[in-house]
């Protein structure tokens, strides 16, 4: 799983079956110091509580499909938790 920041959301009424009822969030992946790293992506919201600006963590590939209640929803990234805090060892 990786850290990410929610930048916003995506609404798509015309979409492939199996994606109905899923909230899509725009996520900026972060490095371990919570700094933006890499390209933004769109993730399914498996906790349905994450709002813009929130620090979250997400999972990719097959596990993203496992994150949602219905079996094997066709998504490649899913937000699986909201971060309260990250305690990093002082380097």
């Amino acid at each position: 799983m990786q850290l990410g920041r929610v930048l916003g959301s995506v609404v798509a009424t015309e979409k492939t079956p199996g994606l109905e009822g899923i909230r899509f969030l725009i996520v900026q992946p972060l490095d371990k110091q919570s700094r933006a790293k890499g390209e933004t992506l769109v993730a399914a919201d498996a906790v349905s509580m994450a709002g813009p600006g929130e620090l979250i963590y997400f999972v990719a590939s097959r596990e993203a499909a496992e994150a949602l209640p219905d079996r094997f929803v066709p998504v490649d990234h899913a937000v699986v938790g909201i971060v309260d805090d990250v305690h990093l060892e002082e380097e």
Partner: protein
Amino acid sequence: MKVGRVAGTVISTINISLLDEHRLLLCDFEDLDGKPSGYTIAVDVVDAGVGDTVLILDEGSSARQILGLDHGAVRAVVVGIVDQLVVDGEVRAID
């Protein structure tokens, strides 16, 4: 699996249910010279502490097997605490 180092912990109260009872460790992946190469947030099943050199599994079906789940969005799991690394016949100190 990969060798890594526990760099910290992630505190989270709102998450998918399967992660509820597990500590989340933020781990640096390390190359053989100890240089960090990326990180992951992994579920801890061996009570590893910050600073420990660890063995990290990063594959879903084995992760689910370890957690006793048929389904679940889990992939990275800290599965061992490294005592010794021997590379090219040389014992690497674990600081």
